């Protein structure tokens, strides 16, 4: 910061006095609802606290829970990799479809407001409602979707979607795509609508082909929006719980036991809160790493672009 831009000392004092009451409520909220619980979770993860076993009153056990999680818990690892596969598959499909849809609307549709409002309906539904709707639609005896899938020959009369292990995860990914693609579309459409026209006009005057316009101008300009949408969807998909819990409960077997469902079972079925906090902490850690990687990538790209 150069000397000219530096605020005067008096201004700082004045600002400090005025800003404190303004930021205090927000700071308190963050501390009470985010920072506090996070540290409590981190502390609990280092205890043996259990609501079920009277011998486990919350004694400090150091990193024992994490050690057990990493070394001796195959269910944790299978849930972890299943979650990663779910995140990669659903976010990738949502991104490709959402991007294409946004481009389509941007280029060819005039009444964009009406269409985007209609598109947003699945996003506005609560995940529990989405789970219940699809559970009913795909119910094996009277589900409407099951009926039509059987009618067009995509499902045999002697099978049902949630009772066929090989169909369960693809169906869950498809439902997530159905719900969240419009969200991706909306964010990318907003990005497209805010792009400056001049770079495109200049490139067109220079004779650039549509493909070059897309690759060399549109994509670089949209990079922050793309990173944002991937980050938001990645974090959200990693925490997926409600829909899967309602539709399958993690089964059949362990076919759809995502990490969040495993954490729920350890915490609220078995009441093994010390170990459950360690599982939850790992979810947080992965999300933190995801955020950090995205921010780094964005900063690196921006720095490279400035250079």
């Amino acid at each position, binding site marked *: 910061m150069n000397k000219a831009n530096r605020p005067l000392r008096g201004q700082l004092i004045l600002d400090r006095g005025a800003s404190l009451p303004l930021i205090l409520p927000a700071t308190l909220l963050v501390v009470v609802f985010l920072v506090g619980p996070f540290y409590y979770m981190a502390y609990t993860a280092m205890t043996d606290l259990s*609501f*079920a076993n009277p011998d486990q009153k919350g004694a400090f056990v150091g990193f024992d829970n994490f050690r057990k999680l990493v070394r001796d818990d195959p269910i944790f690892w299978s849930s972890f990799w299943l979650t990663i596969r779910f995140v990669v598959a659903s976010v990738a499909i949502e991104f490709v479809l959402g991007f294409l849809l946004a481009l389509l609307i941007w280029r060819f549709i005039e009444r964009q407001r009406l269409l985007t409002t209609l598109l947003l309906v699945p996003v506005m539904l609560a995940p529990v409602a989405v789970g219940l709707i699809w559970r009913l639609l795909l119910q*094996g005896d009277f589900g409407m979707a099951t009926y039509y899938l059987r009618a067009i020959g995509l499902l045999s009369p002697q099978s049902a979607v949630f009772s066929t*292990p090989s169909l369960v995860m693809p169906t869950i990914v498809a439902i997530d795509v159905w719900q969240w693609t419009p969200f991706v579309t909306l964010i990318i459409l907003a990005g497209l609508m805010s792009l400056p026209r001049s770079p495109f006009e200049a490139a067109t005057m220079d004779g650039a082909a549509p493909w070059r316009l897309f690759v060399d101008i549109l994509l670089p300009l949209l990079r922050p929006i793309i990173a944002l949408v991937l980050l938001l969807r990645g974090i959200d998909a990693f925490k997926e719980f409600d829909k899967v819990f309602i539709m399958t409960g993690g089964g059949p077997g*362990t076919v759809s036991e995502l990490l969040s469902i495993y954490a729920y079972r350890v915490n609220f079925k078995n009441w093994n809160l010390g170990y459950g906090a360690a599982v939850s902490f790992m979810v947080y850690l992965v999300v933190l790493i995801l955020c950090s990687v995205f921010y780094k990538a964005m900063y690196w790209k921006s720095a490279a672009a400035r250079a």
Partner: protein
Amino acid sequence: MPKVSLRLRTLVATSALSAFVAFAFVSVAGAWSLEEAAAPYKGVTIRTIGEALPPLEAMKKLAPEFEKRTGITVEIEMYEHSEAVSKVMLDLNSHRGRYDFIIQPHRELGKFVTNGHVEPVEDFMTSATLRDPEFKPEEQLYQRLWKEISWYDGKAYGFPFTALTMYEWYRSDLLNDPKEKEGFKAKYGYDLGPAQDWKQYRDIAEWFTRPDQQLYGTALQGKRHEALWYEWLNFLYSFGGDMLDVKSGSECGPVIVNSPQAIAATEYYKGLMKFSPPDTLNYFWDDVMALMQQGKVAELIMWNDATYAVAVDETASTVVGKMGFDLVPQGDGGKVAQVEGWTYLVPTDSKNKEAAYLFIQWMMAYDQQLNQHLNGGATARPDVYASADVQKLPYAKASMQSNEVARPKPTIPQSSEMTDILVRELSSYLADEKSAKEALDQSAKEISALLGSCAPMKYPVQ
């Protein structure tokens, strides 16, 4: 004063005192009334929580009478099974005391007792002001059910809200149909009737599996849910297996869940999947009950608190008058049923323990029990079963018989985790992720590790 006279005086005085005490007791006993006992708590509100099923709905309809007589308001919160359990756990551990009494499945009892969350009922039962002299649980309840559902480690902590057992449901109209009987006998070589053993059960399931007519032989509760474990226990017990080698639910002992009998029971259970509708791995108790109500299933094994909605309630069922009930088919384990009661309990942090006890005691009385039972309840009072109105219910006999042969299940603090392990492994087996032996061996290993030195594996795993 002569010695004899002193003796006489002492005798007279003692007799008079005894007579007075006896008279006082009789008059107190005779004078006990709910209104008087509840007078100190008038205006109080007591809150409870339980599973949203007909027995609790029946209790909700009865509560206004208690409110009118006592001036105590009763608030009842109803939730789905798992929700009702987890809300109570959070309340008990946070010591908020939101609930003045709770209604919980008895498998949770060990957890509550060993963590000091619930009160023994002894103090209430010995209080002359609270105890209704007419309430004699030691005479009026099925002792085995009361001790299984509401006792832990030799001490009473409550009274059974429902004494639930599972038994065989079958479509009597189908099994008595002359054409079906003729065809069945021609194919299997014996008369068609309610299955008495597992071979017959399988044959009947096979015979009635006609997907083109929207009819299936049976319906398994194969979802990854507690329902799967409960249903499987009937097969396990009947085949002569068990989870732990113990005599009561509060004991810890050798793990036998991977015994040859258990493996045979589990393989037989999965063998029925082909006679169950295609979505069977997504069913729990509500789904199979709905299938039976729609007349799509010939036989299944189901809970007695769901029978009312299928066999009696014409607004909900298409098979009223077409249902029959019997004990679970017999295997090497003989006549058995598995019991799962929901029990009234008073939390240590309850703010209105006495008022809560008065309500529970009132609900356990004959009239309330009869009313609740006729509206979908499952009482633990034999005199209610003996009433003419109850005997008219098509499932009364099967309920009574299964009560008599019901087996205990673990109620130790780790029982929920044991259930969770078994649900996961059984579901994995049904989903073809592993064999029955692999699933039960894995269960045995995990349960043994969970319970520690008191639970060695009787069938060690390589």
